[in-house]
């Protein structure tokens, strides 16, 4: 067993985790930032290709209070407005700081270029060309992290559990993926920045490391989650043919810029049957598009892979070339020629609004335990405004690192007993078998869970489907999970990590499902076919925590602030 000790231990090295590490190091703390994949590469951050919302006011006069107003409106009454305000205000500082760190925001004549994205009142979203926002962000932060002597980086360290003693978080148990060795981490403060849970859905835009482990670790440590029923689905994610090297959500700008026709499996337009006029420019609202696609597929009028067609063959090739230049070539590499054939699209799980419940210092209810990034719930309420997730990672990451460091400073660290690690890792020990042929695999069960979540806890829910899902999820927890054989093959025993990931994924799935059952209304991203309207009594946040091994839910008033829209200002450069 390897032991390490640090002031601040950051779990996950995406945008939020790397920012937390930098901020903690700036406070003089020593830091370990760990990722089960490689630093900066494993999660959503490096995959993002689009935009980052920030009221820097370079394109047109703007002020963060206007960004806040748009965020709160998108949140359908559930935004934790204290967190939303911090997100919008500090996004401006962080975007400038990233600029100093040479992220390379697109510019014209010294001013950052800002584009209009759905839901924003004006041109507010910065980006890095061409469709390179996430990789550029990852590279800039990776460079900053590497430069700071106070930060130790740990690629290939899978964190399994937070250790809590006397009600406080004091460390973590991890597995070094390559060697299989157990690592016991003593820490003055821990920041959970291990991302979201969209991998739990069959159709998703996720990496393989986005199975909700941050949420499960938080729950098991005694922290609370909030608003877990709110999973954001993106209406026209890529479905087929198989396409690589491109963001699965990239059809949206195509549709907005030139208009793409949505056709069902019989090559008929259908959006107008759902009360929307798609007109000449095919810009039906996202929720209407999602619903219409879902219904066409359900009624047997889907495309071959279970989505609908998105067609551009009515657009002049010159216009396509002009608007999308290099993208056309990248599509050609995938054998896709939009002039000749349509692609299949479907709603896909894309982002999680719910997450770990924190205060404005990113503190959970467990002293010493902080959270940041997509792992945090509340700032985006019942739906997220586009471009708000990357600033959320920066802003909350910075705060978690800073406040975590301050907490760690004032705290003495007692050495941890190795037994705490042994106990944590004892669970699947009896299921490990040398060279055994797999008796059902964790990945096969994950695939089943993804299908279950997609079909029964997906875009359009009913009480009946949710109850069925809950029953099967609980059975998988008590039964299937305990009965699979895990090949005992070090080094790099991915199958063992899959088991822990499945355990975490099931706990998250149970949380989402239970929360969705309790919210007997439709609001934002939570749509109940059996109860289509929003009801004022549900304008509350739903909390969820573990008591023993039972999930316990509750309701809390939405934190509100009063603010006035400031006069817009153009930034002086």
């Amino acid at each position, binding site marked *: 067993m390897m032991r390490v000790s640090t002031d601040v231990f950051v779990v996950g090295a995406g945008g939020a985790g790397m920012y937390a590490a930098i901020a903690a190091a700036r406070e003089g703390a020593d830091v370990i930032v760990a990722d089960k994949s*490689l630093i900066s590469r494993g999660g959503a951050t490096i*995959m993002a290709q689009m935009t980052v919302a920030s009221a820097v006011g370079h394109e047109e006069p703007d002020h963060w209070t206007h960004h806040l107003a748009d965020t709160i409106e998108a949140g359908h009454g559930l935004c934790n407005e204290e967190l939303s305000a911090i997100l919008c205000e500090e996004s401006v500082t962080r975007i400038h700081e990233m600029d100093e760190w040479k992220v390379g925001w697109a510019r014209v004549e010294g001013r950052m270029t800002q584009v209009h994205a759905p839901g924003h009142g004006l041109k507010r979203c910065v980006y890095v060309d061409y469709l390179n926002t996430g990789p550029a962000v990852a590279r800039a932060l990776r460079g900053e992290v590497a430069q700071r002597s106070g930060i130790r*980086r740990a690629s*290939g360290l899978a964190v399994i559990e937070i250790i809590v003693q006397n009600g406080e978080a004091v460390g973590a148990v991890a597995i070094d993926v390559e060697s299989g060795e157990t690592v016991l981490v003593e820490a003055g403060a821990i920041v959970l920045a291990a991302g979201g849970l969209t991998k739990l859905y069959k159709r998703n835009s996720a990496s393989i490391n986005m199975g909700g482990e941050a949420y499960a670790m938080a729950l098991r440590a005694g922290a609370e989650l909030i608003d877990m029923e709110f999973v954001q689905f993106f209406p026209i994610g890529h479905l087929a043919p*198989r396409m690589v090297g491109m963001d699965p959500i990239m059809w949206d700008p195509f549709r907005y810029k030139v208009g793409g026709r949505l056709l069902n499996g019989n090559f008929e337009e259908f959006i107008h049957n759902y009360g929307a006029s798609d007109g000449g420019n095919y810009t039906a609202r996202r929720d209407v598009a999602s619903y219409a696609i879902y219904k066409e597929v359900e009624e047997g009028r889907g495309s071959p892979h279970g989505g609908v067609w998105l067609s551009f063959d009515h657009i002049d090739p010159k216009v396509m070339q002009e608007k999308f230049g290099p993208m056309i070539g990248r599509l050609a590499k995938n054998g896709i020629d939009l002039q000749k054939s349509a692609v299949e699209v479907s709603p896909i799980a894309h982002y999680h609004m719910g997450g770990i419940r924190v205060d404005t210092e990113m503190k959970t209810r467990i002293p010493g335990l902080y959270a940041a990034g997509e792992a945090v719930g509340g700032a985006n309420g019942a739906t997220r405004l586009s471009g708000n997730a990357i600033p959320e990672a920066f802003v909350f990451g910075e705060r978690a690192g800073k406040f975590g460091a301050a907490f760690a400073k004032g705290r003495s660290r007692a050495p941890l007993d190795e037994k705490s690690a042994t106990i944590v890792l004892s669970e699947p020990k009896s299921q490990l078998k040398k060279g055994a042929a797999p008796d059902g*695999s964790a990945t096969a069960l994950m695939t089943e869970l993804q299908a279950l979540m997609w079909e029964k806890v997906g875009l359009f829910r009913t009480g009946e489907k949710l109850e069925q899902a809950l029953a099967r999820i609980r059975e998988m927890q008590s039964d299937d999970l305990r009965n699979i054989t895990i090949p005992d093959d070090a080094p790099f025993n991915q199958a063992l990590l899959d088991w822990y990931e499945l355990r975490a994924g099931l706990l998250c799935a149970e949380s989402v499902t239970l929360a969705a059952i309790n919210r007997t209304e439709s609001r934002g991203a939570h749509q109940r076919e059996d109860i289509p309207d929003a009801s004022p009594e549900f304008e509350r946040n739903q909390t969820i925590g573990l008591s023993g091994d039972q999930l316990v839910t509750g309701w809390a008033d939405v934190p509100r602030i009063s603010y006035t829209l400031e006069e817009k200002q153009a930034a002086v450069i």
Partner: protein
Amino acid sequence: MSDDLKTTLNVYRGAAGEEAHYDQFDVPHEEGASVLDALVWVRENVDASLAFRYSCVSANACKECMILVDGKVNYACTAKLSTGTVTVEPLAKKKLIRDLVTDIVPPKERLGSVDAE
């Protein structure tokens, strides 16, 4: 998916210091599938102990999935899966960990190495 279309994956197996061998897996072949899709299929359906590295699945962003496909360096996620036999092996110039996993972690991103400094 059509029944007669399939690929035989010929896969390097073994950890550093062990004698290596090759395992053959018949995988279904779907239009446009990548070599990574086939490896994932094997782990899920036939042999969960097969080791390979990847994160982003299809964005080609993480760059973790580099292996040898029929002797050439390639990303498993962008290499199209052909029919017939496809041989996959670990990168020859990197230290082997196990199966298709090699040591691609930057030296200063290792907890052990950094602690020892």
